[in-house]
Protein backbone atom coordinates (compact mmCIF):
# COMPACT_ATOMS: atom_id res chain seq x y z
CA UNK A 1 0.00 0.00 0.00
CA UNK A 2 2.77 2.37 0.93
CA UNK A 3 4.68 1.57 -2.23
CA UNK A 4 1.86 2.60 -4.56
CA UNK A 5 2.08 6.21 -5.63
CA UNK A 6 -1.33 7.90 -5.59
CA UNK A 7 -2.28 9.72 -8.76
CA UNK A 8 -3.84 12.58 -6.82
CA UNK A 9 -0.78 13.17 -4.70
CA UNK A 10 1.45 12.83 -7.76
CA UNK A 11 -0.59 15.56 -9.40
CA UNK A 12 -0.40 17.88 -6.39
CA UNK A 13 3.26 17.19 -5.85
CA UNK A 14 4.03 17.83 -9.49
CA UNK A 15 2.04 21.04 -9.40
CA UNK A 16 3.35 22.40 -6.13
CA UNK A 17 6.96 21.42 -6.69
CA UNK A 18 6.77 22.71 -10.24
CA UNK A 19 5.45 26.05 -9.10
CA UNK A 20 7.90 26.32 -6.22
CA UNK A 21 10.74 25.40 -8.55
CA UNK A 22 9.64 27.83 -11.26
CA UNK A 23 9.21 30.74 -8.88
CA UNK A 24 12.34 30.12 -6.86
CA UNK A 25 14.48 29.40 -9.90
CA UNK A 26 13.37 32.65 -11.49
CA UNK A 27 12.99 35.06 -8.59
CA UNK A 28 14.51 33.37 -5.57
CA UNK A 29 17.83 31.63 -5.57
CA UNK A 30 19.56 33.31 -8.51
CA UNK A 31 19.03 36.71 -6.87
CA UNK A 32 20.36 35.50 -3.54
CA UNK A 33 23.38 33.70 -4.94
CA UNK A 34 24.13 36.53 -7.33
CA UNK A 35 23.96 39.12 -4.57
CA UNK A 36 26.15 37.07 -2.31
CA UNK A 37 28.63 36.52 -5.12
CA UNK A 38 28.57 40.22 -5.95
CA UNK A 39 29.19 40.98 -2.33
CA UNK A 40 32.05 38.52 -2.18
CA UNK A 41 33.55 40.08 -5.29
CA UNK A 42 33.09 43.51 -3.76
CA UNK A 43 34.78 42.41 -0.56
CA UNK A 44 37.59 40.86 -2.55
CA UNK A 45 37.98 44.07 -4.51
CA UNK A 46 37.89 46.19 -1.39
CA UNK A 47 40.46 43.98 0.24
CA UNK A 48 42.70 44.25 -2.77
CA UNK A 49 42.26 48.01 -2.82
CA UNK A 50 43.00 48.20 0.88
CA UNK A 51 46.07 46.05 0.42
CA UNK A 52 47.22 48.24 -2.43
CA UNK A 53 46.58 51.37 -0.38
CA UNK A 54 48.45 49.86 2.51
CA UNK A 55 51.33 49.03 0.27
CA UNK A 56 51.34 52.54 -1.08
CA UNK A 57 51.10 53.94 2.38
CA UNK A 58 54.02 51.82 3.46
CA UNK A 59 55.93 53.01 0.44
CA UNK A 60 55.09 56.61 1.22
CA UNK A 61 56.08 56.09 4.81
CA UNK A 62 59.35 54.57 3.72
CA UNK A 63 59.94 57.49 1.43
CA UNK A 64 59.10 60.04 4.04
CA UNK A 65 61.33 58.26 6.49
CA UNK A 66 64.13 58.35 3.96
CA UNK A 67 63.48 62.03 3.38
CA UNK A 68 63.43 62.60 7.10
CA UNK A 69 66.64 60.70 7.57
CA UNK A 70 68.36 62.61 4.82
CA UNK A 71 67.02 65.84 6.24
CA UNK A 72 68.37 64.91 9.61
CA UNK A 73 71.71 64.10 8.07
CA UNK A 74 71.65 67.38 6.27
CA UNK A 75 70.81 69.11 9.47
CA UNK A 76 73.69 67.47 11.24
CA UNK A 77 75.97 68.37 8.40
CA UNK A 78 74.75 71.94 8.35
CA UNK A 79 75.12 72.18 12.09
CA UNK A 80 78.61 70.79 11.87
CA UNK A 81 79.40 73.19 9.07
CA UNK A 82 77.99 76.04 11.03
CA UNK A 83 79.97 74.97 14.04
CA UNK A 84 83.17 74.78 12.10
CA UNK A 85 82.38 78.02 10.33
CA UNK A 86 81.70 79.64 13.64
CA UNK A 87 84.90 78.43 15.21
CA UNK A 88 86.77 79.38 12.09
CA UNK A 89 85.22 82.83 12.09
CA UNK A 90 85.87 83.22 15.76
CA UNK A 91 89.41 82.05 15.34
CA UNK A 92 89.90 84.29 12.40
CA UNK A 93 88.41 87.25 14.17
CA UNK A 94 90.45 86.45 17.22
CA UNK A 95 93.50 86.29 15.10
CA UNK A 96 92.52 89.44 13.35
CA UNK A 97 91.73 91.17 16.62
CA UNK A 98 95.08 90.15 18.02
CA UNK A 99 96.86 91.31 14.94
CA UNK A 100 94.91 94.50 15.03
CA UNK A 101 95.62 94.92 18.69
CA UNK A 102 99.29 94.29 18.14
CA UNK A 103 99.30 96.75 15.34
CA UNK A 104 97.51 99.28 17.45
CA UNK A 105 99.81 98.60 20.32
CA UNK A 106 102.73 99.04 18.02
CA UNK A 107 101.30 102.25 16.81
CA UNK A 108 100.59 103.31 20.31
CA UNK A 109 104.04 102.44 21.29
CA UNK A 110 105.38 104.32 18.35
CA UNK A 111 103.24 107.25 19.25
CA UNK A 112 104.24 107.02 22.85
CA UNK A 113 107.81 106.88 21.78
CA UNK A 114 107.24 109.88 19.63
CA UNK A 115 105.47 111.62 22.40
CA UNK A 116 108.17 110.65 24.79
CA UNK A 117 110.72 112.01 22.43
CA UNK A 118 108.60 115.07 22.10
CA UNK A 119 108.36 115.33 25.86
CA UNK A 120 112.04 114.81 26.26
CA UNK A 121 112.61 117.38 23.62
CA UNK A 122 110.23 119.62 25.46
CA UNK A 123 111.88 118.91 28.76
CA UNK A 124 115.21 119.58 27.24
CA UNK A 125 114.02 122.79 25.87
CA UNK A 126 112.51 123.70 29.19
CA UNK A 127 115.62 122.55 30.99
CA UNK A 128 117.59 124.72 28.64
CA UNK A 129 115.17 127.53 29.26
CA UNK A 130 115.41 126.90 32.96
CA UNK A 131 119.12 126.69 32.78
CA UNK A 132 119.18 129.90 30.90
CA UNK A 133 116.79 131.40 33.46
CA UNK A 134 118.83 130.07 36.32
CA UNK A 135 122.00 131.17 34.73
CA UNK A 136 120.46 134.56 34.31
CA UNK A 137 119.39 134.62 37.93
CA UNK A 138 122.77 133.40 39.09
CA UNK A 139 124.51 135.92 37.08
CA UNK A 140 122.08 138.53 38.27
CA UNK A 141 122.55 137.60 41.98
CA UNK A 142 126.35 137.53 41.73
CA UNK A 143 127.11 134.70 43.94
CA UNK A 144 130.13 134.44 46.23
CA UNK A 145 130.94 130.91 46.94
CA UNK A 146 131.04 127.88 44.85
CA UNK A 147 129.02 125.83 47.33
CA UNK A 148 126.42 128.48 47.52
CA UNK A 149 126.35 128.48 43.82
CA UNK A 150 125.82 124.71 43.68
CA UNK A 151 123.10 124.73 46.31
CA UNK A 152 121.41 127.42 44.52
CA UNK A 153 121.49 125.52 41.27
CA UNK A 154 120.14 122.42 42.96
CA UNK A 155 117.40 124.36 44.57
CA UNK A 156 116.46 125.97 41.37
CA UNK A 157 116.50 122.71 39.49
CA UNK A 158 114.28 121.17 42.14
CA UNK A 159 111.93 124.05 41.97
CA UNK A 160 111.76 123.85 38.26
CA UNK A 161 111.29 120.11 38.37
CA UNK A 162 108.44 120.47 40.82
CA UNK A 163 106.85 123.17 38.80
CA UNK A 164 107.38 121.08 35.66
CA UNK A 165 105.89 118.01 37.05
Amino acid at each position, binding site marked *: *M*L*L*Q*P*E*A*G*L*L*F*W*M*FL*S*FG*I*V*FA*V*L*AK*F*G*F*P*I*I*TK*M*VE*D*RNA*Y*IEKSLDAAKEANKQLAHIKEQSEAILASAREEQVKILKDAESTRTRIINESKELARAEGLKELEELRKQMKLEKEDAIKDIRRQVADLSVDIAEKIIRNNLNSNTEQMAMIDRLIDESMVSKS
Partner: protein
Amino acid sequence: MNSRLKYIFVLVCLFVMGSTSSYASSEEHSSEGEKSLNVKELILDHLADSYQWHITTWGDHPIVVSLPVIVKGENSGWNVFSAARFDHGHSAYKGFYIAQEGDYKGKIVEKNASGDEIRPWDISITKNAFALLVCSIITLVLIMSVARWYKKNSTAESPKAPKGFIGFMEMFIMSVNDDIIKPCVGKNYKKFAPYLLTTFFFIFINNIAGLIPIFPFGATVTGNIAVTLVLALFTLVIVNIFGTKEYWKEVFWPEVPTWLKPIMIPIEIVGVFTKPFALMIRLFANILAGHSIVLGLVCLIFLTVKLGVAINSSMTVVSVVLTIFISFVEILVAYIQAYVFTMLSAVFIGLAQAEPHHAKKHE
Protein backbone atom coordinates in the same frame (compact mmCIF):
# COMPACT_ATOMS: atom_id res chain seq x y z
CA MET B 1 23.74 23.62 34.28
CA ASN B 2 21.78 22.46 37.28
CA SER B 3 18.75 24.52 36.34
CA ARG B 4 18.88 23.12 32.84
CA LEU B 5 18.83 19.57 34.19
CA LYS B 6 15.88 20.48 36.37
CA TYR B 7 14.11 21.92 33.36
CA ILE B 8 14.68 18.74 31.37
CA PHE B 9 13.42 16.66 34.27
CA VAL B 10 10.23 18.71 34.56
CA LEU B 11 9.73 18.44 30.83
CA VAL B 12 10.07 14.67 30.90
CA CYS B 13 7.63 14.48 33.82
CA LEU B 14 5.12 16.57 31.92
CA PHE B 15 5.51 14.34 28.90
CA VAL B 16 4.96 11.27 31.00
CA MET B 17 1.89 12.70 32.66
CA GLY B 18 0.54 13.91 29.34
CA SER B 19 0.99 10.58 27.66
CA THR B 20 -0.47 8.59 30.53
CA SER B 21 -3.52 10.80 30.72
CA SER B 22 -4.07 10.54 26.99
CA TYR B 23 -3.63 6.82 27.32
CA ALA B 24 -6.33 6.84 29.97
CA SER B 25 -8.80 8.57 27.73
CA SER B 26 -8.01 6.41 24.73
CA GLU B 27 -8.18 3.31 26.85
CA GLU B 28 -11.64 4.27 28.05
CA HIS B 29 -13.21 4.50 24.68
CA SER B 30 -11.28 1.74 23.01
CA SER B 31 -12.00 -0.75 25.76
CA GLU B 32 -15.51 -1.13 24.42
CA GLY B 33 -14.37 -1.80 20.84
CA GLU B 34 -11.22 -3.77 20.11
CA LYS B 35 -9.52 -5.42 23.01
CA SER B 36 -5.94 -5.42 21.85
CA LEU B 37 -4.01 -2.74 20.09
CA ASN B 38 -3.01 -3.58 16.55
CA VAL B 39 0.28 -1.73 16.33
CA LYS B 40 0.91 -2.51 12.68
CA GLU B 41 -2.51 -1.28 11.70
CA LEU B 42 -2.11 1.84 13.79
CA ILE B 43 1.27 2.77 12.38
CA LEU B 44 0.25 2.09 8.79
CA ASP B 45 -2.88 4.07 9.37
CA HIS B 46 -0.88 7.03 10.59
CA LEU B 47 1.55 6.85 7.71
CA ALA B 48 -1.10 6.44 5.04
CA ASP B 49 -2.86 9.28 3.35
CA SER B 50 -6.39 10.22 4.33
CA TYR B 51 -9.16 12.56 3.29
CA GLN B 52 -9.52 14.05 6.72
CA TRP B 53 -6.98 15.34 9.13
CA HIS B 54 -7.59 13.76 12.46
CA ILE B 55 -6.14 16.10 15.07
CA THR B 56 -7.27 14.54 18.30
CA THR B 57 -10.23 12.88 19.96
CA TRP B 58 -11.78 14.89 22.74
CA GLY B 59 -13.76 12.51 24.86
CA ASP B 60 -15.91 10.73 22.29
CA HIS B 61 -15.74 13.55 19.85
CA PRO B 62 -13.07 13.36 17.15
CA ILE B 63 -11.65 16.72 16.16
CA VAL B 64 -11.11 16.52 12.44
CA VAL B 65 -10.26 18.91 9.65
CA SER B 66 -12.20 17.86 6.59
CA LEU B 67 -10.27 18.43 3.41
CA PRO B 68 -11.75 19.03 -0.03
CA VAL B 69 -12.38 16.01 -2.20
CA ILE B 70 -11.97 16.44 -5.94
CA VAL B 71 -13.03 13.40 -7.96
CA LYS B 72 -14.09 12.69 -11.49
CA GLY B 73 -16.66 9.93 -11.56
CA GLU B 74 -17.41 7.64 -14.46
CA ASN B 75 -20.64 9.47 -15.32
CA SER B 76 -20.94 12.29 -12.82
CA GLY B 77 -18.00 14.34 -14.09
CA TRP B 78 -15.92 16.45 -11.73
CA ASN B 79 -17.15 16.71 -8.19
CA VAL B 80 -15.79 18.93 -5.47
CA PHE B 81 -17.09 18.51 -1.97
CA SER B 82 -15.92 18.31 1.61
CA ALA B 83 -14.72 15.02 2.99
CA ALA B 84 -17.08 15.59 5.90
CA ARG B 85 -19.85 14.31 3.60
CA PHE B 86 -18.52 10.80 4.06
CA ASP B 87 -19.22 11.00 7.77
CA HIS B 88 -15.90 9.32 8.66
CA GLY B 89 -16.33 6.74 5.95
CA HIS B 90 -19.78 5.62 7.09
CA SER B 91 -21.89 7.05 4.28
CA ALA B 92 -21.70 7.57 0.55
CA TYR B 93 -22.07 10.84 -1.30
CA LYS B 94 -23.03 11.13 -4.97
CA GLY B 95 -22.14 7.50 -5.47
CA PHE B 96 -18.67 7.92 -4.01
CA TYR B 97 -17.69 6.24 -0.80
CA ILE B 98 -14.55 5.28 1.05
CA ALA B 99 -13.68 1.63 0.61
CA GLN B 100 -13.42 -0.16 3.93
CA GLU B 101 -11.45 -3.10 2.58
CA GLY B 102 -9.99 -4.56 -0.57
CA ASP B 103 -7.35 -3.12 -2.87
CA TYR B 104 -8.60 0.42 -2.45
CA LYS B 105 -8.94 0.37 1.31
CA GLY B 106 -9.26 3.90 2.65
CA LYS B 107 -9.60 5.40 -0.80
CA ILE B 108 -12.59 6.94 -2.52
CA VAL B 109 -14.25 4.49 -4.88
CA GLU B 110 -17.47 4.23 -6.87
CA LYS B 111 -19.42 1.46 -8.52
CA ASN B 112 -19.36 1.31 -12.30
CA ALA B 113 -22.19 0.14 -14.52
CA SER B 114 -21.40 -3.53 -14.03
CA GLY B 115 -21.28 -3.09 -10.24
CA ASP B 116 -17.52 -3.41 -9.85
CA GLU B 117 -15.71 -1.20 -7.41
CA ILE B 118 -13.53 1.18 -9.39
CA ARG B 119 -11.30 4.04 -8.52
CA PRO B 120 -12.37 7.39 -10.01
CA TRP B 121 -9.93 10.08 -11.03
CA ASP B 122 -9.06 11.40 -7.63
CA ILE B 123 -7.08 14.58 -7.13
CA SER B 124 -8.48 15.31 -3.72
CA ILE B 125 -6.47 17.50 -1.45
CA THR B 126 -5.62 14.76 0.97
CA LYS B 127 -3.71 15.10 4.21
CA ASN B 128 -0.38 14.75 2.42
CA ALA B 129 -1.40 17.01 -0.45
CA PHE B 130 -2.54 19.63 2.03
CA ALA B 131 0.69 19.41 4.03
CA LEU B 132 2.57 19.56 0.76
CA LEU B 133 0.81 22.76 -0.23
CA VAL B 134 1.42 24.30 3.18
CA CYS B 135 5.11 23.42 3.01
CA SER B 136 5.36 24.72 -0.54
CA ILE B 137 3.95 28.03 0.58
CA ILE B 138 6.35 28.11 3.54
CA THR B 139 9.27 27.37 1.24
CA LEU B 140 8.19 30.06 -1.19
CA VAL B 141 7.65 32.67 1.51
CA LEU B 142 10.91 31.80 3.23
CA ILE B 143 13.11 32.01 0.18
CA MET B 144 11.29 34.90 -1.43
CA SER B 145 11.54 36.97 1.75
CA VAL B 146 15.29 36.46 1.69
CA ALA B 147 15.44 37.33 -2.00
CA ARG B 148 13.29 40.41 -1.40
CA TRP B 149 15.60 41.61 1.32
CA TYR B 150 18.47 41.50 -1.14
CA LYS B 151 16.47 43.25 -3.81
CA LYS B 152 15.56 46.00 -1.40
CA ASN B 153 18.75 46.49 0.54
CA SER B 154 21.66 45.41 -1.53
CA THR B 155 23.05 46.46 -4.86
CA ALA B 156 26.15 45.32 -6.67
CA GLU B 157 27.79 48.69 -6.02
CA SER B 158 27.07 48.90 -2.31
CA PRO B 159 26.37 45.42 -1.08
CA LYS B 160 25.15 44.77 2.43
CA ALA B 161 25.31 41.75 4.67
CA PRO B 162 22.05 40.68 6.27
CA LYS B 163 21.69 40.08 9.99
CA GLY B 164 19.55 37.78 12.06
CA PHE B 165 17.27 35.32 10.35
CA ILE B 166 18.05 36.41 6.81
CA GLY B 167 21.73 36.16 7.60
CA PHE B 168 21.16 32.64 8.84
CA MET B 169 19.22 31.75 5.70
CA GLU B 170 21.97 33.21 3.56
CA MET B 171 24.53 31.11 5.37
CA PHE B 172 22.34 28.04 4.92
CA ILE B 173 21.70 28.67 1.23
CA MET B 174 25.32 29.47 0.49
CA SER B 175 26.58 26.43 2.39
CA VAL B 176 24.36 24.22 0.22
CA ASN B 177 25.45 26.14 -2.85
CA ASP B 178 29.16 26.11 -2.11
CA ASP B 179 29.60 22.81 -0.30
CA ILE B 180 27.21 20.54 -2.18
CA ILE B 181 26.37 21.95 -5.55
CA LYS B 182 29.61 23.60 -6.59
CA PRO B 183 31.95 20.65 -5.99
CA CYS B 184 29.46 17.99 -7.17
CA VAL B 185 28.25 19.53 -10.42
CA GLY B 186 31.49 21.07 -11.54
CA LYS B 187 32.08 24.16 -13.55
CA ASN B 188 28.57 24.38 -14.99
CA TYR B 189 27.02 24.50 -11.55
CA LYS B 190 25.33 27.88 -11.88
CA LYS B 191 22.82 26.57 -14.38
CA PHE B 192 21.68 23.83 -12.02
CA ALA B 193 22.03 25.59 -8.68
CA PRO B 194 18.41 26.90 -8.60
CA TYR B 195 16.97 23.43 -9.16
CA LEU B 196 19.22 21.79 -6.61
CA LEU B 197 18.66 24.52 -4.03
CA THR B 198 14.92 24.26 -4.54
CA THR B 199 15.11 20.51 -4.09
CA PHE B 200 17.16 20.85 -0.94
CA PHE B 201 14.91 23.35 0.76
CA PHE B 202 11.73 21.68 -0.43
CA ILE B 203 12.82 18.34 1.01
CA PHE B 204 14.32 19.85 4.14
CA ILE B 205 11.24 21.90 4.99
CA ASN B 206 8.93 18.98 4.30
CA ASN B 207 11.10 16.71 6.44
CA ILE B 208 11.14 19.16 9.32
CA ALA B 209 7.43 19.85 8.99
CA GLY B 210 6.84 16.11 9.22
CA LEU B 211 8.47 16.12 12.64
CA ILE B 212 6.22 18.82 14.10
CA PRO B 213 3.23 16.91 15.43
CA ILE B 214 0.82 19.86 15.31
CA PHE B 215 -1.67 20.63 12.56
CA PRO B 216 -0.93 21.52 9.72
CA PHE B 217 2.37 19.70 10.08
CA GLY B 218 3.21 16.17 11.01
CA ALA B 219 2.16 14.50 7.77
CA THR B 220 4.60 12.01 6.29
CA VAL B 221 5.00 13.98 3.09
CA THR B 222 8.53 13.04 2.08
CA GLY B 223 7.84 9.53 3.35
CA ASN B 224 5.27 9.18 0.60
CA ILE B 225 6.47 7.51 -2.54
CA ALA B 226 4.46 9.77 -4.85
CA VAL B 227 6.35 12.79 -3.55
CA THR B 228 9.78 11.25 -3.84
CA LEU B 229 8.81 9.85 -7.24
CA VAL B 230 8.12 13.32 -8.58
CA LEU B 231 11.37 14.63 -7.11
CA ALA B 232 13.32 11.76 -8.65
CA LEU B 233 11.54 12.32 -11.98
CA PHE B 234 12.61 15.95 -11.97
CA THR B 235 16.21 14.88 -11.38
CA LEU B 236 15.96 12.22 -14.09
CA VAL B 237 14.62 14.71 -16.60
CA ILE B 238 17.16 17.40 -15.77
CA VAL B 239 20.08 14.98 -15.80
CA ASN B 240 19.13 13.64 -19.22
CA ILE B 241 17.94 16.83 -20.88
CA PHE B 242 21.16 18.63 -20.07
CA GLY B 243 23.35 15.59 -20.65
CA THR B 244 26.22 16.27 -23.00
CA LYS B 245 27.03 14.34 -26.13
CA GLU B 246 29.81 12.66 -24.24
CA TYR B 247 27.34 11.49 -21.60
CA TRP B 248 25.12 9.85 -24.19
CA LYS B 249 28.13 8.35 -25.89
CA GLU B 250 29.16 6.81 -22.59
CA VAL B 251 25.68 5.36 -22.21
CA PHE B 252 25.27 3.91 -25.69
CA TRP B 253 28.85 3.34 -26.74
CA PRO B 254 31.00 3.08 -23.63
CA GLU B 255 34.74 2.84 -23.96
CA VAL B 256 35.19 -0.81 -23.17
CA PRO B 257 36.49 -3.71 -25.21
CA THR B 258 34.02 -4.61 -27.94
CA TRP B 259 33.08 -7.95 -26.48
CA LEU B 260 31.97 -6.19 -23.27
CA LYS B 261 29.69 -3.79 -25.08
CA PRO B 262 26.63 -6.08 -25.24
CA ILE B 263 26.83 -6.30 -21.45
CA MET B 264 27.82 -2.72 -20.72
CA ILE B 265 25.24 -0.96 -22.86
CA PRO B 266 22.20 -2.47 -21.13
CA ILE B 267 23.84 -1.85 -17.78
CA GLU B 268 24.43 1.78 -18.65
CA ILE B 269 20.88 2.22 -19.90
CA VAL B 270 19.46 0.63 -16.77
CA GLY B 271 21.83 2.82 -14.78
CA VAL B 272 20.20 5.92 -16.20
CA PHE B 273 17.01 4.91 -14.43
CA THR B 274 18.37 3.23 -11.34
CA LYS B 275 20.13 6.38 -10.17
CA PRO B 276 16.97 8.43 -9.69
CA PHE B 277 15.14 5.31 -8.56
CA ALA B 278 17.63 4.95 -5.72
CA LEU B 279 17.08 8.59 -4.86
CA MET B 280 13.35 8.02 -4.68
CA ILE B 281 13.58 4.93 -2.51
CA ARG B 282 16.25 6.36 -0.20
CA LEU B 283 14.32 9.46 0.77
CA PHE B 284 11.01 7.65 0.99
CA ALA B 285 12.35 4.80 3.11
CA ASN B 286 14.37 6.97 5.47
CA ILE B 287 11.56 9.32 6.33
CA LEU B 288 9.00 6.55 6.51
CA ALA B 289 11.26 4.54 8.81
CA GLY B 290 11.85 7.52 11.06
CA HIS B 291 8.15 8.18 11.44
CA SER B 292 7.48 4.49 12.02
CA ILE B 293 10.07 4.33 14.78
CA VAL B 294 8.57 7.32 16.56
CA LEU B 295 5.09 5.87 16.27
CA GLY B 296 6.29 2.45 17.39
CA LEU B 297 7.98 3.90 20.44
CA VAL B 298 4.86 5.80 21.38
CA CYS B 299 2.84 2.61 20.94
CA LEU B 300 5.12 0.99 23.49
CA ILE B 301 3.26 2.94 26.18
CA PHE B 302 -0.09 1.52 25.16
CA LEU B 303 1.23 -1.99 24.63
CA THR B 304 2.57 -2.27 28.17
CA VAL B 305 -0.69 -1.19 29.79
CA LYS B 306 -1.68 -4.78 30.48
CA LEU B 307 1.62 -5.59 32.17
CA GLY B 308 0.81 -3.64 35.29
CA VAL B 309 1.33 -0.12 36.52
CA ALA B 310 5.00 -0.46 37.42
CA ILE B 311 6.12 -1.79 34.06
CA ASN B 312 3.80 0.52 32.21
CA SER B 313 5.05 3.66 33.91
CA SER B 314 8.69 2.66 33.60
CA MET B 315 8.17 1.79 29.95
CA THR B 316 6.45 5.12 29.52
CA VAL B 317 9.56 6.89 30.76
CA VAL B 318 11.75 4.78 28.50
CA SER B 319 9.46 5.39 25.56
CA VAL B 320 9.34 9.13 26.09
CA VAL B 321 13.11 9.36 26.46
CA LEU B 322 13.63 7.23 23.36
CA THR B 323 11.04 9.21 21.42
CA ILE B 324 12.78 12.44 22.28
CA PHE B 325 16.10 10.92 21.29
CA ILE B 326 14.74 9.58 18.02
CA SER B 327 13.10 12.94 17.31
CA PHE B 328 16.50 14.59 17.60
CA VAL B 329 17.98 11.95 15.35
CA GLU B 330 15.14 12.61 12.93
CA ILE B 331 16.01 16.29 12.80
CA LEU B 332 19.49 15.20 11.80
CA VAL B 333 18.02 12.76 9.29
CA ALA B 334 15.78 15.50 7.89
CA TYR B 335 18.90 17.48 7.08
CA ILE B 336 20.99 14.52 5.97
CA GLN B 337 18.33 13.19 3.59
CA ALA B 338 17.83 16.58 2.00
CA TYR B 339 21.61 16.86 1.79
CA VAL B 340 22.01 13.40 0.27
CA PHE B 341 19.23 13.86 -2.24
CA THR B 342 20.66 17.19 -3.35
CA MET B 343 24.21 15.94 -3.38
CA LEU B 344 23.43 12.82 -5.40
CA SER B 345 21.29 14.81 -7.83
CA ALA B 346 24.22 17.18 -8.17
CA VAL B 347 26.61 14.29 -8.73
CA PHE B 348 24.34 12.76 -11.40
CA ILE B 349 24.00 16.11 -13.11
CA GLY B 350 27.76 16.54 -12.88
CA LEU B 351 28.31 13.11 -14.42
CA ALA B 352 25.96 14.00 -17.27
CA GLN B 353 28.08 17.08 -17.92
CA ALA B 354 30.96 14.83 -18.92
CA GLU B 355 33.40 16.37 -21.32
CA PRO B 356 35.11 14.41 -24.05
CA HIS B 357 38.59 15.00 -22.68
CA HIS B 358 39.55 11.40 -22.04
CA ALA B 359 38.12 10.35 -25.39
CA LYS B 360 40.63 12.56 -27.12
CA LYS B 361 43.41 11.21 -25.01
CA HIS B 362 42.63 7.76 -26.34
CA GLU B 363 42.92 8.65 -29.99
